[in-house]
């Protein structure tokens, strides 16, 4: 086993199988005629898509997987050769580069062309341009689902009604058209029930980090835990099964007083409990994680694991109100929250998870997350009295991951936290 490999839990093995079989199914879609819908993680309407027998493709997941598998550098270079600026979101460039290189997905299988681009516009401006760019390559319809931003901290009732109206008048008729099936509200409700079950279990998993030691790492481990629910498996029986298994594993660790598996081994001795804001870096994922685990730092809560839904705040998909619940879901994704709400969420995490520190990983290419993060840092420090750390990386562009620099910053930050703990 190489230094950066880790012992795998059963749930991780299961997740890997689920993802592999989903990509195989996607590869076969042109033959099986299962319609394919490309859409985004925040505001994804997987239950609705699947209720029409369509298969979802999430370009961000492909991009991050390409980053983890060392392919993003070449894809980004390819996109930049086609005139894409070095200043913009690297997920987009990675995806465009992948498409221009034959659209071979992260697991090595060919991705089918979309039958529909579902532009669920939920808190990131880049989504709009991303699908305008993809549309240049694919001859397929695009539906723009406009989800108003929670500028005043709530999804206003008139905004909720507006989203429902678009679902009814635009999206559902289009899904009916591409699938040849009629909208079946009962089938959707069944899927929403599976979602709700999985969400209960996911929340239990994430909240288990309130224990000491924490049985999970809520950032580096957390991105695996949210994988199925953020991608193709919310609203599926296998997704619900996965979260049941995961929850059992985590509860067993709590009972045994164990920490999570990390690249440095099992982290039972946790020197620092951290809250993290911002997406991770994917190109050096394990190396990055190890910089934390080697220092005994465990992330107990993170905002990134909420981009596909803020379930710990109480939201659950509600089978009794199928379209209303989808509107609520879209409105409440982390990317759609306003800056004061993001500050409050971080402060709540610091208190509820008894954190020693909070850290912002600011990614160069993501304005949605990054613009304003320094103000978030100042504000959270002011309100909690806890010093924040700030590091800069990128999502999938390896050129912006400078290991020595990041390690230095992290080490200084941990030293400072250690000194504070010693005094306390």
């Amino acid at each position, binding site marked *: 086993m190489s230094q950066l490999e880790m012992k795998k839990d059963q749930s991780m093995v299961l997740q890997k199988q689920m993802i592999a079989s989903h990509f195989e199914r996607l590869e076969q879609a042109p033959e099986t005629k299962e319609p394919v819908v490309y859409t985004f993680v925040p505001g994804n309407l997987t239950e609705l898509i699947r209720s029409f027998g369509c298969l979802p493709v999430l370009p961000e997941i492909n991009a991050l997987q390409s980053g983890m598998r060392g392919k993003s550098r070449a894809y980004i270079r390819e996109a930049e050769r*086609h*005139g*894409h*600026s070095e*200043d*913009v*979101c690297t997920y*987009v460039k990675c995806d465009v580069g992948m498409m221009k290189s034959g659209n071979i997905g992260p697991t090595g299988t060919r991705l089918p062309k979309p039958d529909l681009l579902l*532009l669920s*516009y939920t808190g*990131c*401006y*880049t989504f*709009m*341009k*991303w699908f*305008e*760019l993809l*549309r*240049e390559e694919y001859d397929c319809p*695009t539906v*723009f689902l*406009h989800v*108003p*931003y929670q*500028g*005043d901290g709530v999804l206003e009732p*008139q905004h909720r009604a*507006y989203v429902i*109206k*678009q679902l009814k*008048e*635009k999206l559902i008729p289009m899904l009916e058209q591409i699938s040849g099936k009629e909208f079946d509200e009962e089938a959707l409700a069944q899927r929403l029930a599976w979602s709700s079950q999985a969400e209960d279990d996911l929340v239990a998993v994430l909240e288990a980090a309130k224990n000491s030691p924490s049985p999970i790492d809520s950032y580096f481990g957390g991105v695996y835990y949210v994988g199925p629910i953020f991608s193709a498996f919310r609203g599926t029986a296998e997704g619900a099964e996965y979260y049941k298994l995961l929850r059992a594993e985590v509860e067993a660790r709590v009972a045994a007083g164990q920490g999570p598996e990390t690249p440095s081994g099992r982290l039972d001795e946790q020197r620092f409990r951290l809250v993290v804001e911002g997406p991770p870096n994917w190109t050096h994922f394990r190396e990055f994680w190890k910089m934390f685990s080697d220092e005994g730092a465990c992330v107990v809560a993170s905002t990134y694991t909420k981009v596909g839904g803020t379930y710990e705040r109480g939201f659950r998909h509600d089978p009794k109100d199928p379209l209303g619940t989808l509107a609520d879901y879209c409105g409440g994704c982390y990317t759609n929250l*306003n*800056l*004061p709400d*993001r*500050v409050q969420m971080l402060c709540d995490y610091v208190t509820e998870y008894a954190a020693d520190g909070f850290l912002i990983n*600011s990614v*160069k*290419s993501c*304005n*949605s997350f*990054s*613009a*304003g*993060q*320094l*103000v978030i840092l*100042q*504000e959270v420090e002011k309100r909690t009295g806890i010093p924040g750390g700030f590091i*800069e990386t990128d999502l999938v562009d390896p050129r912006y991951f400078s290991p020595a620099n990041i390690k230095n910053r992290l080490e200084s930050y941990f030293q400072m936290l250690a000194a504070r703990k010693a005094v306390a």
Partner: protein
Amino acid sequence: MSLRAAVVDRADALACDLDLNHVKEWLAEVPGRKAAGYLPVYAPRELIAAVGMLPVGVHGGGDRLEIIKGDACYQSYICHLPRSVVELLLAGRLDCLSAVLFPSTCDVIRNLSGIWKLQKPGTYVRYLDLPQVLDPSIGVPFWTMEMEHVLGELAELAGCEDPKGGLRQAIADYNAVRERLQVLYAHRRDRPWDIPTAELYLLMRALESLPAQTWMDLSADYLSAIEQEPGRPRDNCRVVLTGAFCEQPPLGLLKTIERAGCYIVDDDLLQGNRMLQGPVSTDGDPVQALAEAFIYTSVKNSVIYEDDPDGKRNLMKTRVEAARADGIVFAAPSFCDPALLDRPMLRAGAEAAGIPCIAFKYAENTGQFQPFREQAGTFSDSIKLWGAG
């Protein structure tokens, strides 16, 4: 001093007035008056004027502001505009604004609305989600509802009892402004030697903080001035300048491009002024009329979703033809998502139509123009030598 110089000086003084002293003077003229800001690119300023407030465009500090606090709020890989806006905000230089509207231009402007809420809790801050679905059955009711909401809240803030009546008047006032802008833009397109872009820009900038009627007088003076003092044609090529709709380039950059031999005959500078391309109906419900005008007549822009699959591909060709231009200058602020993500699509369409293009990035405080001069000069020479296409 010539009339032209007097008008340009006045407009320049307004653009340089980072303390908004002219706004404060306007406020002081009548007790109880209020002013409301709006960020780029487009906010329906008629709503502000309707309740008797002065609409004030918030455009940062350009190249006239030293940034200290703003840099502590923004990483190096975020465009320059928000850091200079925050610099002004934290220095109290925007305190005369009782309300600020943040249109859904991009995530930077969006997040800035949250920063404003945190820093100035007493100010009315509203994020304005522009309608992205231009299908009238969806877009019109949505935008009407959004604007009704804002109009109601602004009316309350301003103590205005008849906001709809005020809105009818404001629509009429800004219809006149739109018509005047069309005259100015058409004149520059036809006789760019009469109206240097730097002057047109300053005039447009004055519109960002003068009451509509005052601006009408100023622009009328300018039109008289160019009648009296027409320019002399030069052997320049004609270009469309695009990508500069939000963070504004320094005036020096506009002058540099024209001095290097490129007449700018169409642009998207301060595009919010010209977002609605036709007059807004003065019949019926004024809020709905304003909403319909947006859905039916708004100019194609990087901040609004393009519904037509061929739209991006064809846009620059259409604009070049309408302006009888020879080429395109893609000029975008560094790190500007809307402009830079659009650029590959727009440029591919332009190049497929055989239109020569150059591209560069700037910041509002760029101080070195030599590289731009060389690039624009070479571009102009090549067009003159080889012709467009």
